[in-house]
């Protein structure tokens, strides 16, 4: 299947971002979520223990098309585990994760075969790691990194792969003249942007982001957040964002889940949760944000 010589290298997955409802743009955050649609990803009763430690305790979550959902919480609250379980990288002890494909068919992530899972990961889904080294091939040029997902989905025309790579470098604000440079010749922020370009090139419907701004200095963070916000709005992506940075969550997310000790203590629209926190832990979290 990977060897089909299809002629759709640049947009091998046309149903990807364009078919879904346009996302709420800019300031309309929170209010405009298309609630009529069925959720893209739906999890119920997720439970997972690492020995005596409860990493997930009966967690449920829904992500709708075009919606950005942030999971915030302190280190060890189970937010990264939740991301791994939702993206199928780790199996929960109990509970289900259901993904609704573009054709409307729903599939249980943890029941599907490995081949189907891989196909999902390289077409409909994307994963942006905290450390760009985990998401990039460091020995492969920027163009090759961006082209990998295209080639994995059957693109076999060098010229159009290269055009797509050039276009995406421009979109993530990297000089296209650096297309043949290796990622290690790039700065940390550029590497992260390259990772985003590499993930988004196949127009996924759902992107998992694990602390995408972690380890970057503040000005670079701001630029990256701006870029992510713009791309998410343009492509109508659904994003599940894991972060401990409340400010980043406020900037990007429509909806917020607050996790502590493996369970969701509070969830709701971002502005509501951050401006009027109900749970004492959320109040602590919001009060701990440093103001410059």
């Amino acid at each position: 299947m990977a060897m089909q010589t299809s002629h759709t290298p640049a947009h091998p997955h046309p149903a990807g971002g364009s078919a879904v409802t346009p996302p709420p743009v800019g300031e309309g955050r929170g209010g405009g979520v298309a609630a009529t649609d069925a959720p893209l990803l739906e999890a119920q009763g997720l439970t997972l223990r690492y020995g005596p430690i409860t990493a997930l305790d009966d967690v449920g979550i829904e992500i709708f098309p075009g919606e950005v959902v942030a999971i915030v919480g302190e280190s060890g609250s189970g937010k990264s585990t939740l991301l791994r379980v939702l993206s199928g990288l780790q199996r929960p002890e109990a509970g289900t994760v259901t993904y609704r494909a573009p054709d409307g068919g729903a599939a249980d992530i943890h029941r599907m075969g490995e081949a189907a899972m891989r196909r999902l990961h390289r077409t409909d889904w994307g994963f942006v790691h905290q450390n760009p080294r985990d998401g990039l091939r460091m020995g492969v040029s920027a163009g090759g990194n961006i082209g990998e997902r295209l080639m994995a989905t059957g693109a076999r025309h060098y010229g159009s792969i290269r055009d797509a790579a050039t276009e995406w470098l421009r979109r993530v604000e990297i000089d296209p003249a650096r297309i043949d440079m290796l990622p290690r010749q790039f700065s940390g922020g550029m590497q992260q942007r390259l990772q985003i370009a590499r993930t988004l090139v196949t127009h996924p419907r759902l992107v998992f982001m694990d602390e995408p701004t972690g380890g970057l200095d503040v000005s670079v963070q701001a630029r990256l957040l701006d870029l992510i916000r713009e791309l998410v709005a343009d492509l109508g992506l659904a994003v599940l964002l894991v972060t401990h940075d409340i400010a980043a969550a406020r900037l990007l997310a429509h909806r917020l889940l607050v996790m502590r000790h493996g369970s969701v203590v509070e969830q709701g629209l971002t502005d509501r949760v951050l401006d009027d926190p109900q749970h004492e832990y959320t109040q602590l979290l919001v009060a701990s944000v440093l103001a410059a």
Partner: protein
Amino acid sequence: MSTMRSAEGGAPLGGEHRSRESHGPTATRSAEGGAAPGGEHRSRESHGPTAMRSAEGGAALGGEQRSRASDGPTTIEAGYNFGYLDENTKRMIRRALLKAVAIPGHQVPFGSREMPLPYGWGTGGIQVTASVIGPQDRLKVIDQGADDTTNAVSIRRFFAKVAGVATTEHTAEATIIQTRHRIPEVKLREGQILVYQVPMPEPLFRLEPRVSETKRMHALADYGLMHVKLYEDIARHGHIAISYNYPVMVGGRYLMSPSPIPAFDNPKMHRMPALQLFGAGREKRIYAVPPYTSVHSLDFEDHPFQPIRANAACALCGARDSYLDEVVTDDQGGRMFVCSDTDYCNTRQGSREAAE
């Protein structure tokens, strides 16, 4: 022990043989006695021309090599099972071969044995050959296309000794051809078996170091990574810069290393009438391409696969269609191109002289 015996070979045979028989009351010895002195005598004799030819090998480039009569069948050296390997091992390898033929291009693990030659010299190929060879077979062994290099001569002699089979240097006459890094220029036909010696069976090993991961990639036909490598080549060099061991897709399903044959030979694998078997001794893998299976070299639509050949004619036979070796002839910068396939070159030279 065997070297001692062949050293004795110069001594009068009959007497020696009889005396050994009288010393040996064991089963193997008396079995050997049953083989009749005449038979053993013939086998000794056959070593003579072989050795002579390999000595000539060095001068072969001068075009002097004429005496290429094939060796007739010989008898098996005492103490060896037919084909060196024991029957259980051969059965095990045949089972792996059957599986490999059933799934073209898929690497089948097998219990590779220690062989009396070092890794990298064809331990995998020699085990495959030993498992498929029969007394009626006629074996040809080539090393980089040449019949007269050390590796080819010693493996051919090995099988003459432990299987008693006839050997040949003519591609058309051979039923089994064990090869290191070349496919003969002459088209192979149905019924022939081409056995490749493979140093590294995994085509993805330079791109993905984890074997568990490459296995998964094969299982899921997830070969985008290989194309990333080709993409990188074009981006860096302007063309796909793989001149040998050029990765191929077999039967539209499995990515396969063709062993380090030049990319020039890749098109010959496509729908070849002969059975192609690949043995990797150190890596303990066997894979196969059954007759008439599609074998496609990976490429891009706008950068199609290009077999590479030196732009010259063979200095000895004038061939313009064969794969050439560049040979340095002196220390004054002198060099020439000659066919890498010695049998092909010699046949052409012979027919050209006959025509004159």
